């Protein structure tokens, strides 16, 4: 029965391939396509949940070469990411039933959507570095068509940019993995890391290994939008269809975060880089990104691009928490992974619903929209408040832990500079999100007649917005769960 771990990966991949390979004429009736896709998604989600909450922990796929096997292994961290992935993917799919009606090649989109789902599940369940790297590369490949879905010249250029940056990062990481192979066990993840410190010291390779670890972090950090290789994010998000941007920003970029967590805390070990220049540079880069992302979002006029810059900034909140290398900071990071996935997909879906219903893409055009679609804009407002971190929404919980984690650190300036940067960024977040909702409710409206987006688009948005609020009111179970994960790592 241990094959059940394979199911959430293989099933969506098969479904996705089926949709991609079947001829277009089979799905001339849109209703049939949508119903089929919906049913398949429910099936896949059930499979994933069975695997996530099941008792099976490990499954060995096959050996690539002697000694290197592909292993699926499920632990609490994987469960966390898998649940978030399943939740967001299901809701975004529901939204895309409404959104994709206005786009061409709907079947192809769903095909790649299922492929992405399968690959992401594989990434969450991977049990060693090789498996993870494999799924990581696949993830880039299957999300690439989602980015250039519209097929305009702009979209293709953006897609290529995404591919270029991602591969660049992946190769940096691969380079690191080659060298890591000598001292660490890359065939298994071990909480606390498996780096043989004594051997590294004996060979006098400490300095070199630090460089390798840095390469790993910045390589996987490309997906997580860490400065200086973040530029693909604001290019790729606005051109992709809204469900795809929600997916990218909510889930796919978290793949980079997961990879970094796995490498740093499960392979290298936090102790090795604690207090070294790698930690310092990592902290500095993430803080720079936090501030840079927020400042650029503040000045950005295109709505989706503004949200994309906000993603850049928020992902670095997560990276900052990880870079602190202490349990509290990491708890904050993992909390922010969940909250940001929910909040940002909600925001992107709002942007998508606005584009589909009114065709407006610029921030300035959104004035008075709240009179036209009050429910949507209230959801947007709640998600915005959560992203800023206004209690009692969820964002404040993760920020609190991040700040407390930073305060615990004894690194010279980080203990106060970190929180200050996070708070300034929160202020900028308020500056780039709240005027949108205030103007939409209070500004002059060109159309005052009520016209909400279709229910199929509105429902996922409402659910996500309610979730941001609920998680802020009752964060205790999640916090306990995450504290359990982080306590064992350091």
């Amino acid at each position, binding site marked *: 029965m241990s094959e059940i771990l394979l199911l959430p990966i293989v099933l969506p991949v098969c479904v996705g391939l089926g949709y991609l390979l079947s001829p277009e004429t089979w799905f001339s009736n849109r209703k049939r396509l949508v119903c089929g896709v919906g049913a398949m998604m429910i099936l896949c989600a059930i499979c994933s949940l069975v695997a996530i909450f099941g008792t099976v922990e490990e499954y060995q796929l096959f050996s690539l070469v002697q000694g290197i096997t592909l292993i699926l292994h499920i632990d609490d961290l994987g469960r966390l990411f898998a649940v978030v992935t399943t939740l967001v993917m299901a809701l975004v799919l529901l939204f895309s039933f409404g959104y994709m009606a206005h786009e061409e090649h709907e079947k192809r989109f769903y095909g790649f959507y299922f492929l992405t789902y399968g690959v992401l599940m594989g990434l969450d369940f991977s049990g060693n570095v090789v498996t993870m790297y494999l799924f990581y590369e696949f993830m880039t490949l299957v999300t690439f068509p989602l980015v250039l879905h519209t097929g305009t010249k702009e979209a293709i250029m953006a897609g290529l940019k995404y591919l270029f940056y991602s591969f660049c990062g992946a190769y940096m990481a691969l380079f690191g993995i080659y060298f890591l192979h000598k001292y660490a066990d890359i065939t298994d993840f071990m909480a606390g890391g498996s780096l043989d410190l004594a051997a590294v010291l004996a060979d006098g390779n400490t300095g070199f290994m630090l460089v390798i670890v840095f390469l790993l972090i910045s390589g996987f950090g490309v997906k997580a939008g860490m400065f200086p290789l973040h530029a693909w994010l604001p290019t790729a998000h606005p051109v992709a269809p809204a469900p795809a941007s929600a997916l990218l920003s909510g889930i796919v970029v978290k793949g980079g975060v997961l990879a970094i967590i796995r490498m740093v805390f499960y392979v290298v070990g936090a102790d090795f880089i604690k207090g070294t220049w790698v930690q310092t540079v990592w902290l500095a880069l993430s803080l720079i990104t936090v501030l840079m992302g927020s400042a650029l979002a503040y000045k950005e006029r295109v709505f989706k691009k503004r949200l994309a810059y906000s993603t850049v900034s928020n992902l670095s909140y997560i990276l900052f928490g990880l870079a602190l290398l202490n349990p509290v900071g990491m708890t904050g990071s993992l909390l922010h992974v969940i909250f940001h996935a929910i909040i940002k997909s909600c925001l992107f879906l709002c942007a998508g619903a606005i584009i589909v219903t009114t065709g407006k893409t610029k921030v300035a055009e959104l004035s008075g929209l709240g009179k036209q679609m009050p429910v949507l804009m209230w959801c947007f407002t709640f998600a915005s408040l959560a992203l800023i971190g*206004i209690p009692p929404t969820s964002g404040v919980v993760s920020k609190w832990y991040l700040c407390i984690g930073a305060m615990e650190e004894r690194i010279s300036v980080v203990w106060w500079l970190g929180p200050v940067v996070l708070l300034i960024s929160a202020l900028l977040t308020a500056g780039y999100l709240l005027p949108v909702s205030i103007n939409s409710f209070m500004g002059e409206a060109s159309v005052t007649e009520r016209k909400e987006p279709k229910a199929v688009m509105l429902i996922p948005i409402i659910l996500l917005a309610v979730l941001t609020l609920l998680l802020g009111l009752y964060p205790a179970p999640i916090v306990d769960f995450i504290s359990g994960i982080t306590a064992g790592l350091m």
Partner: protein
Amino acid sequence: MFTNLSFTISGFRCVYGALTAFAWLITFLFSLDYLKEDKKRWRYYLFNLLTLVATLGIFFAADFFTLFLFFEIMSFTSFMWVLHRETRESFYAAGTYLAIAIAGGLSILMGMLLVWRSLGTLCFHELYEKAMIIEDKTQLYIAACCMFAGFGAKAGAFPVHVWLPMSYREAPAPATALLSAILSKTGIFGLLCISATILPMDDQWGFFILVIGIITMVLGGICGLCSDNLKTTIAYSSMSQIGFILVGVGMQGLLAEENGLAVWGTMLHMVNHTFVKLLLFLLAGVIFAKAGSYELNHLKGFGKRKPFLQLCFILGAAGVGGIPLLNGYISKTLLHESIVEYQHMAGTGKAIESLFLFSGGLTLSYMTKLYVVLFVEKNENNELQKQYEHMTNYVSTGTRITLVLCAIPVLLIGLLPNHIGKWIMDSMSELMHVEQEMEQISYFSLTNLTGVVISVLAAVVMYLLVVKGLMLHKKEKGYHNPIPNWVSMEVYLYRDVMFRFIPFLLCVMARVLDCIVDSLVVILRKTVYRDRALPYELPEGNLFTHRLAQMVTVIHKAQERFAHKPKSNRNYEHEIALKNTELVEDMKIVERSLSFGLFMFCLGLTLTLIYLFAVN
């Protein structure tokens, strides 16, 4: 450490919880009448109730985190009050209100984190015990200053008061009454919590608050005196009274163990201010509902033949002005005595005392200004004056009752200071861990009355000087604000620096960082990886041939025009690019040819020989 909200109840919290409930009830009754015609009243009521919840949450909080949480909720829900009218001005005011509230909130969060770091808890009673024994207070000072930015902003303390006059003016009258009567006290409550828990009886913190308090008190008084708008005057009066309260808070720190007088004075002045401002802002609402404006020139003579209005106004104005037998006198006397006590400890006491009395004079003088305008002078417009005088049914019975309910405590506290006043002060002062017993204070002794006389003299001088001298124009009739518009901190300091200049700097830096890798890629494609054309690259040739072709074309056109040459459509760009390609290819052939190789060989040989000669 995060998920538990904790609440507690004690004397101070009881009194302010009750006052909050009272104020909400009163303003609700008032707004039934006031907002009868307003289409958006349900939205107002909704946010009103939400704010009530948040406010009670603040007063009953037992730790800083709960306090912060409800403080933020309150800021956001009360934001809708300011925005209520949805005009351009209210937009502007609400924007400032929200910006300051958010920045203040984040600043409080930072302060809380610092407290957490140095004391390891946020719970009030644990904080007090830990703070008493801590050695190095530097971090706590920074934390307290951070929190001051947030709490002080809500209270309306200098220099974070900029939102206050505008927001008070834009909110509907019952909301303004609440903003001034209760919401400003939440800010004070926050500051008191700092004084009571993390910096108990600390003279440096006390001095800081004292300085802030004095500036707020004097500045508020002067701005109030110069204002030509009824509501703005009362708004600045609110700010000035907050200054008085802050002086009391500062004195609590400076007087350390002997701070009984300061604590009692502060507490009583808070309560007094709540009642008086409820009364005055509701009165302003009554006037606005009938006259349709807050402009003093328009309101001149409004109160003629309106004895009820006049009585209420006198009670409010004299109450806040510190006239004996009314409530303000009691609390101001206590504060005054605490300053006198401080004189025995430090030399600066004298200066503080005179500024305190001077501000008391300012309070009286701007209230006199309002009184004269409303009830003594006649409107220039005779018809309007007639209209005002025949307006007998200007206030409904319900509103009358609410106003009376606000006015009664003003009298009661003033007349029975040793009973009701003492009871209030006794129950409230537990918050500050006062150890002194409260003795009978002779409020009406000669020394205390002298203070009033000085204040009244100052008031007369200031009234004559500012109102008669500066505000009443000779040419244009009526009152005019002598302070020019450009002396507004709001516009220059906050809006421009905070919203424009700093984000601009940040963005320039961010843009540079953002472009680093992208420009690197572009440079690489222009130099090393030349295989694909960039979107803006030329179809053929290079930049040099392109420019050359342009020049030749221009010359040719000129020749056609002026030298009457026959027309020809030769494509110079193409020709020159071809020439260029030929040239490049020729060069390549030369490069690859044998003779070139021989030539290079010779060159190399020569160089080798020279090298050999040079070495040997």
